[in-house]
């Protein structure tokens, strides 16, 4: 439960960032740790945490003490317990949101942290929240996925999904409760967890996740068992009382940063095109009219996807202090976000970022690859994955072409454990070892949103030397076949079918 893993070359420490929310002081501390104890960088994960990959084991107590100074820790970032609660990174600012889910994340975080009953589950347990109809938290790929919604009476509740997951057995979560009144959230979670804790398999770690239990007994039987436990619960939860939610909610009221008028921040004539591109790809409107969110890209061939240097962390912290009320978010897609920046300050932020690759206008493009550490760090990996990402990214460096390609999600895992989420990538890549050689299976048509879908295998695996070429063939085939520049990759795939892509790749 302490977040430490012995990896291929060194111990790795995973540090919890609850629902992806970071303060500038926390980010500065992470920068100090990266510089003093690691090799000068950290790695943002798909579950919104940060990992340090090159630590010395004997220095970990000092690191934990430093983390504690800024209210951070590594508890329950490993082990068979309830892991970090993740959330839509646009929570509280999304235009289409029912309600900000972060107070609920915090409620569940407090309830789940060191929960006496659920520290030795059959296997790890992941919970994700969204408050929006657009799912950016992959809730259907979690052990429990929760979507806030409002019923016809105007009451708030949750759509509850259970038994989703990836790994070697990818399963889309099943709807267990279409509308759970908000006051029942913690008791219902307790009921699900108790059934899982008592009934989940413990004889085989590969069959111990809740998805296997739900699949084996069926969602109807599982639901009836949960409902039975739920009915017999009294109000004396080991966790805490929902009445405290108002206290938590009061801490999530948005504070809108002021517009800072500065001289000398107009654009030079040769900057207009880059700025416009950045504005289009890396910023988005929020529910606050004069405020936009800014993505800080951590995707470029010069870095492992999700890596950020200590110097960059300090730049981001400074920008957050100046323009975003000191707040930063980590995203499921391994980037960072300044949640609320006044429109009048966008040029300043862009200029401040322009000396770094964090301003590259590539959010949701083929460069914005989700990728596991692979052979570079991971002791479980079958193949490399980061170099594959770099090779693919390098094929699409022209910013004009990158924009023209539209949104294509490529996800790479270096083994069947699927940490790179390859199952739910528009283009998924899975590394497999065959007699000491690296091979790569490709899937097409996966998606991680509210219509979450497991991708379909394209055909035989391709070798290490061919994988980037093959991905390029797939993308160029899409370009040639799409009806116009607005037809999304998945729409084209649905329209022409996967066989068309098979033909293009295998002939």
């Amino acid at each position, binding site marked *: 439960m302490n977040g430490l893993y012995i990896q291929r070359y060194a111990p790795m420490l995973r540090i919890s960032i609850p629902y992806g929310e970071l303060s500038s002081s926390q980010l500065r501390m992470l920068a100090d740790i990266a510089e003093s104890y690691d090799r000068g960088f950290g790695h943002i994960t798909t579950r919104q945490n940060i990992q340090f990959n090159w630590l010395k084991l004997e220095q970990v107590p000092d690191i934990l003490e430093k983390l504690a100074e800024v209210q951070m*820790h590594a508890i329950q970032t490993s082990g068979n317990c309830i892991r970090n609660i993740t959330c839509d990174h646009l929570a509280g600012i999304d235009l289409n949101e029912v309600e900000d889910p972060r107070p609920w994340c915090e409620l569940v975080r407090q309830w789940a942290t060191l*929960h*006496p009953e659920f520290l030795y589950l059959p296997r790890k347990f992941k919970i994700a929240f969204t408050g929006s109809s657009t799912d950016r938290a992959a809730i259907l790929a979690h052990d429990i996925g929760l979507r806030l919604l409002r019923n016809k009476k105007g009451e708030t509740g949750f759509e509850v999904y259970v038994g989703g997951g990836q790994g070697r057995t990818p399963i889309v979560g099943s709807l267990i409760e279409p509308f759970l009144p908000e006051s029942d959230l913690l008791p219902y979670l307790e009921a699900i967890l108790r059934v899982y804790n008592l009934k989940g398999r413990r004889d085989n770690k590969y069959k111990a996740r809740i998805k296997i239990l739900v699949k084996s007994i069926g969602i109807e039987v599982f639901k009836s068992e949960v409902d039975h436990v739920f009915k017999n619960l009294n109000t004396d939860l*080991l966790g805490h009382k929902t009445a405290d939610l108002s206290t938590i909610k009061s801490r999530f009221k948005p504070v809108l940063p002021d517009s800072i008028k500065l001289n000398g921040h107009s654009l030079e004539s040769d900057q207009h095109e880059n700025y416009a591109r950045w504005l289009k790809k890396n910023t988005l409107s929020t529910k606050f009219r004069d405020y936009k969110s800014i993505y800080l890209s951590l995707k470029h061939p010069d870095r492992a996807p999700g890596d950020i240097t200590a110097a960059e962390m300090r730049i981001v912290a400074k920008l957050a202090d100046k323009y975003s009320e000191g707040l930063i978010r980590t995203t499921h897609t391994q980037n960072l976000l300044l949640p609320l920046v006044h429109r009048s300050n966008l040029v300043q932020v862009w200029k401040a970022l322009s000396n770094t690759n964090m301003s590259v206008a590539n959010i949701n493009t083929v460069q914005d690859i989700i990728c596991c550490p692979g052979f570079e760090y991971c002791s479980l990996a079958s193949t490399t994955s980061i170099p594959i990402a770099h090779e693919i990214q390098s094929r699409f460096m022209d910013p004009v072409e990158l924009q023209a390609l539209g949104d294509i999600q490529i996800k790479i895992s270096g083994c069947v454990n699927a940490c790179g989420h390859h199952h739910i990538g528009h283009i998924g890549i899975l590394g497999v070892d065959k007699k000491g050689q690296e091979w790569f299976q490709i899937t097409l048509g996966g998606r991680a949103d509210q219509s979450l879908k497991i991708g379909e295998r394209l055909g035989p695996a391709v070798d290490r030397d061919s994988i980037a070429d093959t991905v390029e063939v797939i993308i160029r085939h899409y370009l040639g076949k799409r009806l116009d520049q607005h037809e999304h990759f998945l729409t084209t795939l649905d329209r022409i079918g996967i066989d068309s892509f098979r033909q293009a790749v295998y002939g």
Partner: protein
Amino acid sequence: MDNFDFSDRIITIIEWNAFNQGNEINEIQARVLVLSADSPTGLLNGPLNKLNRIVVTSVDFNDGRIFSIGRQIRLLGYTGSLTVVGDLLPDQFPALLSCGFDKAVILENFNTSQSLEIDQAFDLFEAGDSGTGKINFNQRLP
């Protein structure tokens, strides 16, 4: 936690099932039911408060079912003594207490006071801390 006194009469699962079916075991005054994590959950459907003590055995500290079993027994209204025996870690004791156990049989060299100290150091970190509006990760041990 105290050490468990085995002087009570332990009843067998067969006796317990018979007892649940209405067959009184009159000659037995002190009754102890011994369960394991693998015991059928149906065993808990009987009149638990007729028992003086329930003992749950742990064969592997990683097997977290014992926590839910303890919790379930208390939720069913059992007020007698609830003991856990077997492979346990000292830092599991606070959680076992929270889940309703009041006794544990442990090895002599286990330092239980340390686990309780750690638990107290994380007082505000424990589930139920939201009333304070914040968490506190940096409390030091005295």
